[in-house]
């Protein structure tokens, strides 16, 4: 009897463990900042902050506020990253500064059964 109880307990734990770990992994990080192709910062999306990121064209000021992210200031010529404005999901790119800000992850798409989003 004890063997059976132990068996079912272990089975339950094993199955629960698989689903818990899957869920934990799929949540991912809220804001990932890559510099020159390497993940440099991982930040929660729902904690407001200002962050200065060093790049070839000087410091880029990244702002997180109310679940959104923007490049507040950058010293690149085209200001494409600044023009993106606030982003709650997606990516902001500053090629001159080799900076990529990923807001939310592709896991969110997969959770919704999507392979990509247009728009």
């Amino acid at each position: 009897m004890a063997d059976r109880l132990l068996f079912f307990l272990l089975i339950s734990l094993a199955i629960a463990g698989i689903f818990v770990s899957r869920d934990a992994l799929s949540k991912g990080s809220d804001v990932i900042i890559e510099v020159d192709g390497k993940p440099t910062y991982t930040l929660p999306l729902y904690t407001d902050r200002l962050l200065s990121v060093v790049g070839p064209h000087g410091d880029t000021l990244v702002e997180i506020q109310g679940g959104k992210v923007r490049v507040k200031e950058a010293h690149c010529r085209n200001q494409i990253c600044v023009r993106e404005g606030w982003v709650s999901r997606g990516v902001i790119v500053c090629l001159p500064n080799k900076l990529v800000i990923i807001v939310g992850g592709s896991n969110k798409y997969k959770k919704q059964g999507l392979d990509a989003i247009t728009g």
Partner: protein
Amino acid sequence: MLKAYLFILLFVCLLLNSCSSDKLSTYQKSKALLDTYVTITVVADSQVAADMAIENAFDVIERFGDMVNFFSDRSELSAINRSAGVREVGVSAETLDIIEKAIYVSDKSGGAFDPTIGPEIRLWDFINKTKPSDLEIRKNLPLVNYKNIIIDKGKSTVFLKKKGMLLDLGGIAKGYAADLAVEALKHKGITSGLVAIAGDIKAFGLKPDRKPWIVGIKNPRQKIVEDEVIARLPLIDKAISTAGDYERYFIAGGQRFHHLLIPRTGYPAYACQSVSLISDEGAMTDGFDTALFVLGPEKGLALAKEMGMDAMIIDDKGAIHTTSGLQGKLTIERNY
């Protein structure tokens, strides 16, 4: 007895884990290119094969981007713009081809899409929420006319007839690049994949589970995170692009001012919130989505049908209009 149970437990765990790794043959990489984020997903039998094909496709996109970069002094496009009204400029086959396609979209849409809209676009400051004066807008209008792009295919040259004209291929380049990337992947033996250059997406083949790639369409008036997607549809050997008034805009005096300008007037078009277009070719979906946005739902759907494309148009009231080809394929999300 306990050993037998533990053996069964081990077997069950192995079975569950083997079932859970259902993405073994799907590989994905992302890279910052074309001033945006490019994600390529391929179905392959090994990581090595996938990496080689994806990196090659990235290289193809990067080389193309270098030629048509509006902001780089070294691009062929900048050379054309610097020489506007002065002389013709020799260009590569790809640059000539994309300009020809841009002129084709302009012609077919009666000028609703115009790659020479640059002098008007540059007047709008979407960061500082500044609208240009009516006079400034009127002054630059004579510089906007795709018919003043002169191409000599024999010599592979491009000439902008008026000084001050600006050719901007931003309205078609990402879709064109998706086409190039898909061809590059196929050339490396990939038979199924998805290239997403920001919202310009092209899919080919089926996923490992023999199901089509599924693409969500962004809600143009998203209020909460759960509202992000308004509809979804399967994509098999097709491209999809979306033009929306929520990408670059500001609101002043209760009015939304966005970047999708009517080439004839220089002011934003207001008949739609977003246009999603599906066809075989990324360059066409990317170019024509802007044209349909400017034309509005009625004329836009008529043009889509004429061109053999499928479209989903959300009008200024939020109502959804589609071509008949999307019936039975498009799923509208429950919360819309």
